[in-house]
């Protein structure tokens, strides 16, 4: 579903991603772990289309199409979703109505008719339950005054409504207490299905107890230095990142 080939990305002249190769097959859940500054969030934002990042080399193919050629909204309509690490507060824009406009933009792109108000309401009610979201949050402006946990749940709620085919979760676990982490993880697990892939970006292994990945990649200094099964996450939890940093440094010095 998603192929990343030799991706190099710079921000203001500094190279952050230095040749990423990654393939996430349809229906798979991949996790990317790495310490702060390794380039995890940069990868997420490049996939979503944030333009502060300059792709200097490489390719990202989504469903056979060149993802990097698309505007952020086109990517969303094609079925790419990013749950933000820091969801943005937007005063004056209703959480529900905006989502309806977003869903209709996606549906239009897919050749589906616009959803009417009643259908939308029914859909929203059903999806809210997934993340145990309180109804009052629907009527508030997008993320405004939401607690950290509410913002993360709202991201998963948006994802549930928009039904993407490929979702990037950028440190969705950070700042969540154990109850909220369970709720968010349960929401994601319900959305796991054969034709939907996930890329989980996280600093900690804890999330992966709840959302069990098929493959774990370790990102260090802009490169994937190791890939393995879910047990790799446990190994990292135990040993930290230092042993991989040493291992990764070897080829450069050699």
């Amino acid at each position, binding site marked *: 579903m998603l192929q990343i080939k030799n991706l190099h990305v710079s921000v203001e002249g500094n190279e952050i991603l230095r040749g990423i190769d990654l393939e996430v097959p349809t229906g798979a859940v991949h996790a990317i772990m790495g310490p702060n500054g390794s380039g995890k969030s940069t990868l997420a934002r490049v996939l*979503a*289309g*944030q*333009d502060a990042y300059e792709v200097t080399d490489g390719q990202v193919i989504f469903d056979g199409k060149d993802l990097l050629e698309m*505007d*952020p*909204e086109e*990517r*969303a*309509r094609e079925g790419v*979703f*990013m749950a*933000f690490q820091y*969801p*943005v507060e*937007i*005063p*004056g*824009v*209703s959480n529900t*109505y*905006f*989502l*309806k*406009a*977003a*869903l*209709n*933009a*996606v549906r239009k*792109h897919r050749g589906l008719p616009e959803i009417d108000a009643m259908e939308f309401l029914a859909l929203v009610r059903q999806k809210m339950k997934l993340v145990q979201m309180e109804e009052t949050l629907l009527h508030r*402006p*997008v993320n405004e005054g939401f607690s950290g946990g509410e913002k993360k749940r709202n991201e998963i709620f*948006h994802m549930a409504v*928009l039904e993407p085919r490929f979702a990037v979760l950028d440190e969705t676990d950070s700042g969540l207490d154990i109850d909220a982490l369970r709720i968010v993880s349960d929401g994601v697990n319900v959305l796991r299905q054969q034709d939907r892939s996930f890329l989980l970006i996280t600093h900690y292994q804890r999330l992966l107890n709840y959302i069990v990945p098929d493959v774990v990649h370790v990102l260090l200094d802009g490169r994937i230095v190791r890939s393995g099964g879910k047990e790799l996450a446990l190994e990292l939890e135990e040993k930290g990142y230092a042993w991989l940093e040493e291992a990764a440094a070897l080829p450069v010095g050699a």
Partner: protein
Amino acid sequence: MTTDVLRTSEVLTGAARFAADFDTFLRELPASEPAAITALRRMAIERFVTLGFPTLRQEEWRQTNVGAIAQGSFVRYEGPEPTVDLSRLEPLAEGAAARLVFVNGRLSQRLSTLGELPAGVIVASLAEALEKAPDKVEPWLGQHARFDDHPFVALNTAFLRDGALVWVPRGVVVEKPIHLMFVSNSTGSEPIVTFPRNLFVAGENSQVTIVETYAGEGAYFTCPVTELVAGPASVVDHYKVQIESREAFHMATFQIEAERSCAPSSHSISIGGALVRNDVNAVLDGEGIDCILNGLYLGEGRQVIDNHMRVEHAKPHCASHELYKGVLDGAARSVFNGLIHVHPGAQKTDAKQSNRNLLLSSNAIANSNPQLEIFADDVKCTHGSTVGQLDEDAIFYLRSRGIGQEAARSLLTYAFASDIVERIKVEPVRRDLEEFLFARLPQGEVVRQAV
């Protein structure tokens, strides 16, 4: 130096033209005009001649150049009532208690309608009231809108002819809004000037909602003055919808005289005009007054929109809350000048002022000047002003959900304006403004769906 001399002489020429017209104008007035009103006119024209048109060297006008008005030649309209297209304005007055339409400065009987008004309420042409019921006009007219330092108020006072008198007796509630429409049409003639003059007197413990709309076609100059005397414990909601033609000049003053425990509110929507100035002055002259002054201005092209606010806290225990928001595109320019003056002894004053500007283009300019003059020591006065652009992170967030870039920008622009829109209690006026925004903003249909 040379330019300065030249400008001064041109400005005087402009002012002198109005002065020369004054005697002719006086002869056209009905002989029955109360002597006190004629005397007021004479004082006003004298003052205007002394002041002349303002220049950029005057503090109150340093950011707004009225040279185009000073140098323009505008005539008072004397012809028959021209036909005007009211289709744009009519929806605003849906469900109104009364609708007075003034065309080129004079009441149009044909277009005006009086519905059922509570007993004792007067909604009338000021010209007619001056003839038939001067006791309802004379005690108030010109008593509050000072012209000693304001040339346009002086000009209006000298040349005032017609406008609306709204008189609500003690204890009476007018439930439906009263609409006043001022329409100018100078297509096919020289540019005209009108001096609408309105007087609203709300008796003790009364309630009324009044909407003033200004619109027109072609190039012209509207110079209105509205005086509101809000009696003790009265509730007066005032709306002004300024949708003048884009070639028009509009120099308006709204003067609020507030008495004990009343709750006056002003909502000013400024959309039209080439060069616009709205002065709103509130004198809180009794205890326990709660005054709200809201405004929204939307400029594009080369429009200049100036909002000058002056709130005087003359007595203790009064609150004034001002929120003005501006959205500027193209090479539009705005001025917000907000003065809060707290008199000695006006303790427990609670004055809040906020001016927020959104610039949609790099050529748009917003000037914001809050001014606090506080001569009491136990007061709460805050002010804030911002000039900013759309939040790029918010745009990206919306786009990442599938909303197109243009629609995202429009949605955020709408959201910025919406807290003023939502404060409009007259439903047809609020709806009209919403519709205007959906039409003005690119991808407005997406915005309509998303708000």
